[in-house]
């Protein structure tokens, strides 16, 4: 078991997501920054879909109750194992009683803790990703114990890699969305020349941007949405749906983020700057 002594700001268990239930309104969920999770699981020679912990901004304090091997990825949150700093993308052995804790957020917004063979929490609708009401809890709170398999001895093929992080990238790549043709020349110019910033309204469901563009009065029938769908509200607000975003929506879907750009956006926080580039 992994004992959660302190959970930090927002701690969740995530795999790559819950597929095949969109038709009954269940969002995909899953890790926000898929790229970072896949790399950590790869280093541990896990299945890329094995469950990890997603840590948001303020890290937790965690105690391991069995030996295993871990790998951190994503945001740099000054992680220490028994008060010794540990780096991302490095396979590290943990012993019974070891304590992993976090400090200051240095770069990015969401960190990941992967463990050998993945966390073994309950699977619902074929995924361990936490999303209420599919899972009973929307996140991990203080005192919770998360199961994992004991691993005494393991020789990683590659124990450490240097990864070029994507935290500094400001440009998000977008495709035309289904309602792209509704945009006026003025709106297009604003979207592709302006610098936008992440507003306070940002979470696993959606990122709203602070700057408005010209609004519209187009009404449409509710239709499907995906992670990465950028909706434009009548008031001119851009809302980017993320992994826990609803499966349908009634605002024009003007743009669609590339999957790589979803991972980039997942590492942005309130006040961070970004711009759009059509591919």
């Amino acid at each position: 078991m992994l004992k959660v002594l302190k959970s930090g700001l927002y701690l969740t268990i995530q795999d790559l997501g819950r597929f095949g239930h969109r038709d009954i309104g269940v969002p995909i969920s899953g890790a926000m920054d898929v790229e970072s999770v896949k790399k950590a699981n790869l280093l541990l020679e896990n299945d890329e879909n094995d469950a990890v912990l997603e840590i948001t901004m303020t890290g937790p304090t965690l105690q391991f109750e069995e030996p295993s091997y871990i790998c951190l990825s994503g945001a740099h949150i000054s992680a220490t194992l028994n008060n010794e700093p540990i780096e991302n993308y490095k396979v590290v052995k943990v012993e019974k009683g070891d304590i992993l804790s976090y400090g200051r957020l240095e770069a990015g917004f969401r960190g990941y803790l992967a463990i050998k063979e993945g966390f073994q929490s309950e699977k619902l609708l074929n995924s361990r990703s936490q999303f209420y009401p599919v899972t009973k809890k929307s996140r991990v709170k203080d005192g919770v114990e998360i199961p994992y398999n004991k691993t005494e001895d393991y020789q990683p093929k590659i124990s450490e890699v240097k990864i070029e992080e994507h935290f500094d990238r400001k440009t998000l790549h977008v495709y035309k969305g289904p309602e792209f043709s509704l945009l006026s020349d003025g709106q297009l110019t604003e979207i592709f020349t302006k610098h936008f910033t992440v507003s306070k309204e940002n979470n696993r469901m959606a990122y709203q941007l602070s700057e408005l563009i010209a609004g519209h009065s187009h009404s449409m029938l509710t239709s499907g949405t995906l992670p990465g769908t950028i909706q434009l509200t009548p008031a001119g607000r851009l809302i980017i749906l993320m992994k826990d975003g609803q499966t349908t929506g009634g605002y024009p879907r003007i743009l669609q983020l590339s999957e790589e750009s979803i991972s980039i956006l997942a590492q942005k926080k309130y006040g961070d700057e970004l711009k759009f580039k059509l591919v």
Partner: protein
Amino acid sequence: MKSYPISIKPFGERAVLVEWPMEVSESILADILDFMDAFKELEIPGWEMSVAYNSLTMVYNQDHIDFEATKKMVLECHEKQAKSKTKRIQHLWTLPVCYDLEFGMDIEETAKTLGLSPKELIKQHTSHQYVVYGIGFLPGFMYLGGLPSTLEIPRRAEPRLKVQKGSVGLAGKQTGIYPQDSPGGWNIIGNCPVDLFDPNKKDPCFVRVGDKIRFESISMAEYKLHKIEGEVGIYEPEKVVLNA
């Protein structure tokens, strides 16, 4: 059966949006469902499809797709769909609703705005059948069409931070049930004791797009009984097959 023209748009790296004429119509919905049946008969693994009114979102979970090839496949399937052998089963579900003031906190004000007595409002709400045009927004939330114009009322000026699970509401041309606690701006007229989404069941949501719903007024005592029956897993909402 009449088949409608469709348009196919790219939707990111692994999805397409297929659109039928922009209307809320049972015959368009039937055409979409026929298309889905025909597509499922092709038995291509990895595709998931979800309907909302006049559109179908098709997502390929396994990989990125080639838009032109996908478009061709969808058009070919749409042309051949009349030959589909699948006989779709659609149900009419009777869902109980307790319109007691304890749940229907807006029923008196709503009735007044509509120029009806609460009793007349309940009579009208329970005497129509509603078509399920989509499931989305929240797990198990049904987009229902077919509300009589006499029950059309704007959303509340201020949304509530918490609307209780099971709440039955009216807003614009829509009526619906909140499948879980949620913020919401609908006018709440009652509560349905049936779980519309239960992830522990093999079939977490018993309703399908294309089914119909009717509401039946029940007393507080019946509400409590159905609630208990639901908790121990012995309550089944009443259904009849529509197209046997």
